[in-house]
């Protein structure tokens, strides 16, 4: 095994946003069986330690590729782009306006215990999140426009946060 391989190469996958989830799961299980600590029970200390490092590395790679957000962020990192740079606070004004409005609606729905309102918001946000994921696939795989992909991913991040806020609002209403 080669520690310098990227996460995709580790599982024998091509580095694209659209991935074969089954192939990823299969490759992950095979690797984990190969490096399972039980197989190194009688090996020397150095080999056991190495197997442990591989196991950790494999888990990290698997978690990264499994999540659409982490996978896109990682693909951009391979291109030298830090999409989540905290110093970059500029986002398109109309996007931020929409985010602001959605959050205001969420607060209002929560204050009024408006369950149907919450559901409508959730539907709208989920549809937008889906749209952004499709756009992300087009940015990354078809157009290979990485700066555009970076902005799409940043937008998607706001949607993820907003959907988590909606989940919390449901929990508060119950």
């Amino acid at each position, binding site marked *: 095994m080669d520690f310098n391989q990227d996460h995709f190469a580790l599982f024998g996958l091509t580095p694209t946003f659209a991935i074969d989830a089954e192939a990823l799961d299969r490759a992950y299980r095979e690797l984990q069986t190969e490096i399972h600590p039980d197989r190194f029970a009688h090996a020397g200390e150095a080999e056991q330690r190495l197997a442990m490092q591989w196991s950790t590395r494999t888990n990290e790679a698997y978690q990264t590729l499994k999540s659409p957000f982490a996978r896109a962020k990682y693909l951009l990192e391979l291109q030298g782009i830090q999409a989540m740079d*905290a*110093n970059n*606070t*500029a986002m398109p004004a109309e*996007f*931020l306006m929409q*985010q602001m409005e959605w959050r205001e609606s969420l607060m209002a729905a929560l204050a009024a215990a408006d369950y149907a309102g919450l559901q409508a918001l959730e539907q709208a946000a989920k549809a937008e999140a889906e749209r952004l994921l499709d756009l992300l696939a087009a940015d990354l795989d078809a157009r290979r426009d990485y*700066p555009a992909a970076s*902005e799409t991913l940043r937008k998607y*991040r706001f949607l993820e946060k907003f959907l988590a806020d909606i989940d919390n609002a449901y929990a508060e209403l119950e």
Partner: protein
Amino acid sequence: MSYSEKVLDHYENPRNVGTFNKDEAGVGTGMVGAPACGDVMKLQIRVNDQGVIEDAKFKTYGCGSAIASSSLVTEWVKGKTLDEAMSLKNTLIAEELALPPVKIHCSILAEDAIKAAVADYRQKHGGGGEYTACNPPKEH
């Protein structure tokens, strides 16, 4: 996470929460967002004929530190000139609120918000270039 007393004070009693009409001539609006935590911040200033900021309002959806940072900035910029407001540094905000390193980005957000508000006002009045936060937005 434990918040400093000053953060808690601004969080529990935020100053100047609200909205001005963004189409009003004397109003400048700055909107910024932090993808890392999904925080959204709107900061507005009302400027008089002498170029002094008379009033400021904010609306922030985010963590306690982001709310405290924007609340503090609206207090600070009142009575300041536009140039003075432009020279506000996030380090001062972080210091005043005793923000831990993981929350420094909240003070950056507030600094960028006030600068974007001043830039919006100046653009309305035909002076100065557009302020584009720390990094220019991607072109496409």
